[in-house]
């Protein structure tokens, strides 16, 4: 059944070899590190989603609903944002799925720096502990953006939160360095740059941003902490600082960071669409180069968060033009995906469902970005629920859907168990319907006059009585959306107990990670002497006895 592992006694899986808790905690195996990352990241997602539901429930009706004051509500949205961004989306795909898959896709023994990889996991846990401390101490109320001088003057434990983000930043940098070096130096003979699976191009672009942009966030937050603790005036005008400087520093990281979140998702969608359409990827080089283009142009657009901050109209014009430029590579990817599906044989297993949902939802997210990139419309919708809807369509509709597609795709490889496909499809439908009910109404209330980060909208109802209706829709959708996520967890965890054993290659993919057993052995199998085109599926035929695809020589 398995071409790579044909020794008489197949080696034990990485899950049990070597055995024992200690071997897990001190492991340098990228597969185990990836799996442990998946566990802690999922816990963070659950925490972030809990805060999301509290926010939604509060906003269902005008006036205090479940929390009594803005004082508490502001902590809810701050924790939701910081947890989702720094603890979930940024590490989600690179550190968990990427870590597991990258060396296997290259046929490499491990990442270039296995110890650094483990350090990255422990730094993540360290950052998580800081966030839990912040939570115990009553939370922070600055928003995930930490804008000065509010963040330098509020009584909340901002320094603790900032140190947490600082530590998480290094976790992200370590992952990025590892991926860059691994991709540069450990590709097998015969796998040139343009033979690599496109997921690796996406991870490569992501790693460039992680390594180059994250230090800017680190130094910015350090300056913020210094200003708060010893009163050196950097951002607070009362101390001679400049609050707009903070925004430039912050977005110089945080805009590229949204591409840390979306690029790996695009990579996953690329792999999944080819495999489930049984088609060679269309326009390989254009997809590969568009990942790099997004990574590079992404560095030059941060000022579009600041069109109404008081920066000059000339600067605004330049950032607006550059912002439109970054839309092009994303559009190129989408059209190439569609061309790949053309005349394919399209199967709708859960990974494909989530990839198609990615195209539709990220499509709405990207297209509504045109309203925000255009100067005059940005002025009207800036800091409203419209922006909230836009970035949730890109980050949750894009990055989260990509993550779930990847999770469903590689789950059999990671755990060695197949989940129930029909249940996976139902979870996709729940999430799709719930998601749109949650966020689409927010476009409408936002452009009609509902600001973001508003605890109470009672006084807006005189002119906008319709707001309550849309907020109720949004909250109902939110619960359905989270219900769908709970179902994903149920479907996957259930497979561990009752799922049938996964074949080596359940989807018929041609990339190297599927050519070894599920789950893989402790020692990654080496790449074959002649690495072929990873998007040619002709040789893979479905084998009834194995319930998976086998390679026909």
């Amino acid at each position, binding site marked *: 059944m398995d071409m790579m592992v044909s020794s008489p006694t197949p080696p034990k899986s990485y899950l049990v070899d070597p055995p024992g808790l200690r071997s897990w905690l001190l492991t340098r195996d990228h597969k185990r590190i990836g799996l442990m990352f998946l566990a802690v990241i999922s816990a963070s997602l659950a925490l972030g989603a809990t805060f999301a539901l509290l926010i939604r429930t509060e906003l269902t009706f005008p006036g205090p609903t479940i929390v009594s004051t803005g*004082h508490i509500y502001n902590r809810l949205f701050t924790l939701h944002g910081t947890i989702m961004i720094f603890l979930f989306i940024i590490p989600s795909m690179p550190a968990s799925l990427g870590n597991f898959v990258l060396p296997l896709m290259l046929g490499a023994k491990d990442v270039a720096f296995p110890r650094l990889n483990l350090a990255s996991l422990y730094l993540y846990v360290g950052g998580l502990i800081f966030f839990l401390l912040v939570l115990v101490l009553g939370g922070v109320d600055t928003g995930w953006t930490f804008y000065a001088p*509010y963040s330098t*003057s509020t*009584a909340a434990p901002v320094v603790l939160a900032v140190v947490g983000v600082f530590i998480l930043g290094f976790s992200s940098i370590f992952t990025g360095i590892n991926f860059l070096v691994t991709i540069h130096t450990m590709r097998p003979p015969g796998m040139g740059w343009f033979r690599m699976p496109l997921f690796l191009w996406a991870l490569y672009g992501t790693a460039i941003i992680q390594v180059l942009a994250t230090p800017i966030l680190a130094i910015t937050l350090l300056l913020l902490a210094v200003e708060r603790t010893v009163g050196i005036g950097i951002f607070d005008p009362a101390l001679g600082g400049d609050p707009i400087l903070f925004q430039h520093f912050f977005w110089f990281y945080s805009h590229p960071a949204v591409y840390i979140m979306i690029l790996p998702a695009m990579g996953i969608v690329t792999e999944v669409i080819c495999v489930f359409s049984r088609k060679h990827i269309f326009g390989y080089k254009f997809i590969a180069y568009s990942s790099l283009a997004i990574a590079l142009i992404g560095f030059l657009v941060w000022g579009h968060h600041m069109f*109404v901050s008081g920066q000059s109209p000339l600067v605004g014009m330049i950032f607006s033009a550059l912002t439109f430029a970054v839309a*092009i590579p994303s559009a190129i990817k989408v059209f190439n995906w569609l061309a790949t599906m053309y005349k394919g044989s399209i199967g*709708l297993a859960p990974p494909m469902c989530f990839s198609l949902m990615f195209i539709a939802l990220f499509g709405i997210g990207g297209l509504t970005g045109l309203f925000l990139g255009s100067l005059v419309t940005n002025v009207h919708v*800036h800091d409203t629920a419209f922006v909230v809807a836009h970035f949730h369509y890109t980050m949750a509709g894009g990055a989260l859907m990509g993550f779930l597609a990847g999770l469903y795709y590689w789950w059999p490889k990671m755990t060695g168990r197949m989940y129930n496909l029909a249940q996976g499809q139902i979870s996709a439908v729940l999430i799709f319907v719930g998601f749109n009910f949650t966020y689409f109404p927010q476009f409408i209330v936002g452009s009609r006059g509902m600001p973001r980060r*508003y605890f109470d909208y009672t006084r807006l109802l005189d002119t906008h009585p319709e707001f309550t209706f849309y907020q109720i829709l949004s909250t109902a959708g939110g619960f359905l959306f989270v219900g769908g996520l709970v179902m994903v967890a149920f479907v996957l965890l259930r497979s561990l107990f009752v799922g049938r054993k996964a074949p080596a290659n359940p989807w018929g993919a041609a990339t190297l990670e599927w050519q070894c057993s599920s789950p893989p052995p402790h020692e990654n199998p080496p790449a074959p002497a002649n690495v072929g085109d990873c998007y040619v599926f002709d040789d893979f035929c479905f084998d009834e006895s194995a319930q998976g695809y086998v390679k026909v020589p």
Partner: protein
Amino acid sequence: MFAALDSIWHVGLPFAQTDGFWLPGAATTDPAMDRVFYLILVICSLLFLLVVGLMTFFLVRYRRLPGRKAEKTATQNILLEATWTVIPVVIVGVIFYQGFVAYMRMQTAPPGCYDLRVSARQWAWQFIYPNGHIDDNLHVPAGEPVRLTMTSEDVIHGLWIPALRVKMDVVPGRYTSVWFRADKPGAYDLLCTEYCGDEHSSMLATVEVQTREDYDAWLKDAANYLKTLPPAEAGKLLYKRRGCAQCHSTDGTAGTGPSFLGIFGKSQKMADGRSVIIDDNYIRESILEPQAKIVAGYQPVMSTYKGLVSDDDITALIEFIKSLSKKSPLRAPTHSVDRGEGQGVGK
């Protein structure tokens, strides 16, 4: 070329309704933003239908069926790639140009603007009129260009008037400005859109667009209240106009700060354990040095009004707070009030 670009301007026009589904009613007859908004909406909707339509069609047409295999098609085509690169470039180019032109019109104030000053603080707006009057609502004459020059006393705030399609951050330590011409008399919302703390969502005001005559009459009248009204009533106006009301209720409900109802003359427990009688001097101190004595159970979040209120203002506020305790059975001892009044005026 620019003429062609300008004609695209009109694409959004048939869809542009002020007070339509997507945008609130406008107070200006030329909401340049609306046309661009609806232009983008049309383009977005068409592109979305194209992508999702193609996707759905392929999904149905090429669904996996027993016995049917994927067909081999070309794996790259430079002409196709060029097509779906160049067309989006042109589309976003048009959107960029339209957005930029309308933005510059919005940014460039015409000569002879009527100038007002805006000062923002946690969590109140203060609109400063040419004759020195300070109000918590923005009154503007209709049909005239008005420019607001804004600054903040504490953190960053954001001024948004949805009906006028203008928004600008209000930043401490520097001045920002917006200009607009409101044509239709009426009352419109003004909101804070840059997150600024506990009472961010209470930081609202009304824009009163009035005819020139109404505006002039209002301004003349409004500037006078300290001299014409009894102190307690003047204090009530100050209470509403200077941002006290956002945190201190007059009906006994606790807000970000304690309620003013029935507190005068009472003994209050402070955060540091002391008990303090709420008298004239305590109120004066709390206005000028809010952090000095914090009532137990509240956060030290109020910023000082030192230099922002006159002694007469403080006296009026004290009288107003005192008037909220008149019906209370636990009225303050007379001597305390006498002593307080003597020093509170501070003359």
